[in-house]
């Protein structure tokens, strides 16, 4: 097993890894906004924000440059740990409208604890040559950010690639030519249904560096245990928001279940502060409650994994059970197991 526990010492406090950074959609349409969870879910004193979209929202950006702190704007405690990615995922369809220097500026202005470097994500539909160009560009941006970066915040280089060599090669190249506190693997979302491929790519990144490894966008209920098993130190997710939008109820071990499939039931099986006290019909109507529960589900998933490890139980046995329900993820886990065993 590659699972590992570390401690990150950051400007706004310490954080135990592995950890999830729930996505905070501030600066986006209000309907997508994340309900307050800091303080209600003790595990998550963390947040992932999109530097670019905050900067592009003029009223908010004006407040932030005139004395209001990001954490005030988010209505969270000042010791909240913030990971600001560059917002690269928005560039897929558009031209890049920022530079490494500008992004670093924004990240510093926001008082983020972790900076992700500007990147140009890949798509499986792209021609190979186009993806190669993007990989090259992201590496260049990362190195430029490394040259310019000062201060206490951690700098994570964003890394892309759809084959193990490219990922290893990029990380080695960045390690040699830059100064990074960790690496963040991107472009996994478009290929997330290809579990086998994602597993391979994550492992190749894990093998290439002992530094902190973040995986962008795959912190959902199914991927979380898989990433923990593969030794990933952090991940982020907006799945709890998106699922709630689709009235999808997340529950560890089962994945998501559309609530409309459950016609009459008084109480849901989860004992979290949302479900524990309320009846199903109440939650069905309350999207914010559903979002909060979904985030609790992610927290429970993480707690369970940690518990299994601390109790000295066999993690692989736990995961065998955990993944047995779904043929696709079971096979992905079996592949991961074989690969991990070869490495350990």
């Amino acid at each position: 097993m590659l699972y590992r526990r570390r401690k990150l010492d950051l400007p706004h406090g310490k954080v135990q890894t592995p950890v999830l950074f729930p996505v905070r959609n501030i600066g986006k349409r209000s309907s997508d906004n994340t309900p307050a969870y800091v303080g209600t879910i003790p595990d998550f004193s963390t947040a992932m924000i999109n530097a670019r979209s905050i900067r592009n929202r003029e009223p908010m950006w004006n407040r932030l440059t005139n004395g209001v702190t990001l954490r005030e704007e988010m209505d969270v405690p000042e010791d909240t740990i913030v990971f600001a990615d560059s917002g690269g995922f928005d560039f897929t369809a558009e031209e890049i409208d920022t530079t490494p220097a500008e992004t670093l500026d924004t990240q510093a202005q926001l008082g983020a604890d972790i900076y992700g470097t500007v990147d140009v994500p890949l798509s499986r539909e792209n021609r190979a040559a186009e993806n190669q160009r993007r990989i090259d560009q992201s590496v260049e941006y990362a190195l430029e950010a490394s040259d310019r970066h000062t201060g206490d915040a951690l700098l994570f280089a964003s890394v892309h690639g759809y084959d193990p060599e490219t990922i290893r090669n990029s990380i080695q190249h960045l390690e040699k030519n830059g100064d990074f506190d960790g690496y963040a693997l991107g472009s996994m979302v478009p290929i997330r249904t290809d579990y086998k491929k994602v597993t391979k790519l994550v492992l190749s990144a894990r093998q290439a560096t002992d530094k902190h490894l973040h995986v962008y966008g795959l912190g959902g209920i199914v991927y979380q245990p898989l990433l923990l098993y593969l030794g990933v130190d952090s991940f982020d997710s907006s799945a709890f928001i998106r699922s709630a939008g689709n009235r999808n109820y997340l529950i560890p071990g089962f994945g998501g279940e559309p609530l409309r499939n459950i016609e009459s039931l008084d109480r849901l099986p989860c004992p979290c502060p949302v479900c524990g006290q309320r009846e199903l019909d109440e939650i069905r109507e309350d999207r914010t409650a559903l979002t909060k529960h979904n985030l609790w589900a992610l927290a429970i998933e993480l707690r369970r994994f940690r518990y299994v490890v601390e109790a000295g139980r066999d993690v692989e046995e736990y995961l065998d059970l955990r993944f047995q329900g779904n043929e696709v993820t079971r096979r992905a886990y079996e592949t991961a197991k074989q690969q991990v065993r070869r490495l350990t």
Partner: protein
Amino acid sequence: MSNAFTISDEQQDYSQYDLNANPFPYSPVPNENPEIYCGQQHVSDKISSTVSSMLATGKSKHLVVTGKYGNGKSHTLKYTRSLLRDREDVVVGYVAQPGDGFLDIYHEFVYDLGFNRIQELAYEYLASVTRDVTDTNPMGAESMESLIDEGDVLLSDIVPEAIRRLSDVTKFADFARAIVHMVYEDTNLYAWQWLTAEGIRYEQRKEMEIHSALDDDTMGVRAFTAFKNMLLDLGYTGVFVFVDEFESIARLTPKNEQATLNSIRHLMDQNSSGLCILFGCAPEVWQDVMSEYHAFSERIGQEVSLRPLTSEHLYELVENYLDKERPSTVESRIRPFTEESLDLILQRSQGNVRQVLALCSRILDDAANENRQEITVDFVEEAI
């Protein structure tokens, strides 16, 4: 209690013959890497001049070695191959027999080079591009691989350029992509299967952005030519192809036989430099090819025939073998054989080199077992 078998790991003792071991091959199958050439001077002269001319001028040249079964065609080709394989400026492939057509010849050729060698060539190509577009200076496959592993060069930097150039050099973009995919662990098996013309599924091709299937003789000729052009671009002098048992094309239908010969002719026409094909063929089949397919035989033009072994050849051959295991020179060069006993062996094996060698091996063992000082005609008579 009786010992029906005496099994021992002790070496047979050949010291009474001033030999360290039995030097003759046990099996009548030609050795993969023969050390001794038991051919004939006029044949080795002809091969030498063909090969040397290609090496010296870079111009393609081909040769047919004819000889009856057992006269040493395979041995001749394999011996020549073993000499050439040591050279760093050529690539050598051996095709045991032509199969059902040119695609099979191509397949066997690539297969004989092997996955590792093709992968090495892919790295060599990346190295040549890397030398041009970066400040690093990888001199071969190994140093290229380590530059990639260490992150000294960025794959995404050199791969697009490598594909562009190789497509230019080979006029075959799919081939260029397949070669470059040999360095990626996710796709190198598919790339290899495509390059060997084994055929891969459409999705696997799509993943490498390879549009064509390498599945007929025309594509085989194209891929082979691309391969050779890549080698010339890498600075190699040329490619040697040894096609053994060429006579087996006679069992193809006339249409397929013609198609095979046509493809080989196209290959020769498209490769006026850097290619040398040596065929091993039974004389009667070669006669037919010569008379029926002028266009093909004209391209080869050169033929040399192995003759059945003569006594003089045999004495010399046996001496060469014995010398391999002789600690010092002795007065009787063919001892413990006598000229008479060798003549009998030759007569019994009808001049077939393989049989002669196998017989020599067995008889020498028998003689050592029985502590015979000399291998006489009588002893051979008994042993055969």
